[in-house]
């Protein structure tokens, strides 16, 4: 009985590691940096992490995790509640489909796939916000955001690779 309880705790802990890592990194990237126009080069850490974990450890990063990540992004940004939730869910959905074909893809291939997925997600975000505010938003912003996100992918992915080493390789039968 005690063993099963311990096992349940261990499973819960393992399942929460990717989500916790994602949230911690998101908060780290919110730190105020005194550099001019630095906001233009802040990446969408949430999108990188959702993509990475869904691709590499899909069974540890569920749609609920993507939902929570989107919820927190919406809470600390001034975007309307729901926009980032929808985008993170979409990222998870697309990546899960891609994982069937590219789960064991090389790092560079993963980076390339992410750049394509991120492009689509950013376009949807721009469209959603333009619809919400009733006029087309500046396209320059989305390009900066997209480039910053793609450029930061190796750094965030490297941290995730470090965390991944402590996670089980295969799905655990619950």
């Amino acid at each position: 009985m005690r063993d099963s309880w311990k096992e349940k705790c261990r499973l819960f802990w393992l399942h929460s590691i990717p989500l916790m890592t994602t949230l911690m990194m998101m908060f780290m990237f919110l730190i105020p940096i005194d550099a001019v126009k630095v906001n233009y080069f802040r990446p969408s850490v949430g999108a990188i992490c959702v993509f990475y974990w869904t691709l590499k450890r899909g069974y540890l990063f569920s749609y609920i995790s993507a939902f929570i990540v989107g919820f927190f992004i919406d809470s600390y940004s001034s975007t309307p509640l729901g926009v980032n939730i929808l985008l993170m869910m979409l990222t998870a959905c697309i990546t899960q489909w891609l994982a069937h074909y590219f789960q064991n893809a090389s790092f560079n291939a993963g980076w390339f796939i992410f750049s394509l997925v991120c492009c689509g997600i950013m376009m949807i975000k721009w469209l959603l916000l333009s619809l919400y505010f009733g006029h087309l938003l500046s396209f320059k912003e989305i390009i900066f955001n997209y480039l910053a996100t793609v450029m930061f992918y190796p750094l965030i992915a490297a941290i995730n690779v470090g965390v991944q080493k402590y996670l089980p390789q295969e799905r655990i039968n619950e």
Partner: protein
Amino acid sequence: MVRRSVLLIKTGELKVWLRRIFIAFLFFCSIIFLLLSKVENSAVKNLDKAALRVTGPIMQVVEYPARMVHRIYTYLYDISRIYIDNRELRAENKQMLLLQNKVRSLEVENQLLGRLLNYVPPADANFISAKIIAESSDNFTHILFVYIGDEDVKKGQIVLGDESVIGRVDKVSGQYAKVILVTDINSKIPVVVERTRARGILSGDNTVYPALIFTRSTADIQEGDVIVTSGVGGMFPAGLPIGFVNSIQNGEIRVETLADISRVEYVRIVDYGLSEKQAKVLNDFSESEQNAR
């Protein structure tokens, strides 16, 4: 014996279908949130506030070590510039002394003219200093998170950085407040050009330089003109400096904020004593707008 089906449906298939329904439900929730945000539903606002209560303390903890490293860097940088700064400050000080005398005489003149016009001065402003604990994370939002402690801060209060307006309080939750910067797309401030008194609206559009809109096409506006609040609408008192005209291209006027928002570490949240009557009018207006929706 292991049971393999429920009502002729295999348990494996049932699990898959339940999972799909749950995912569809989550998508549905996100769309509902978005629609409720559009109509400014109070439940969504409360949910947002609750999230701020959770994220606030975490961000405060994360920010602390980073701030320490930054302080050390700033300290060393300041030391390297101490000689140049000292020379510049001495020169500036001479000019300031001359200006001080001018200001004194203008103040006396202003008081005399005020008496003549039966002018009622604005209520004494109270302010609190608040520490910035986080900035917005992408280009679509220009906001700050500040730690206000147990101070009484209300939505709509003005936020100053380096003596000029940088934004307004959007949400208060517990000991934290969310500040919408003048560059954010949600920010619209009635302003006036100080030199010519031409009126307009300073409208943020998530770029570094917010746009000055709704100005008369014949208005005399030049690059370098200082932009101050006009006081129209009652949310902001008149005469608070915001920025100066950075560029005028094809009729599009862009304004640069006086405060370097990216270098501000502490902000001042100012309560200009918005009268109860004004507050009531604003509340009534927002309620009627919600009812209309």
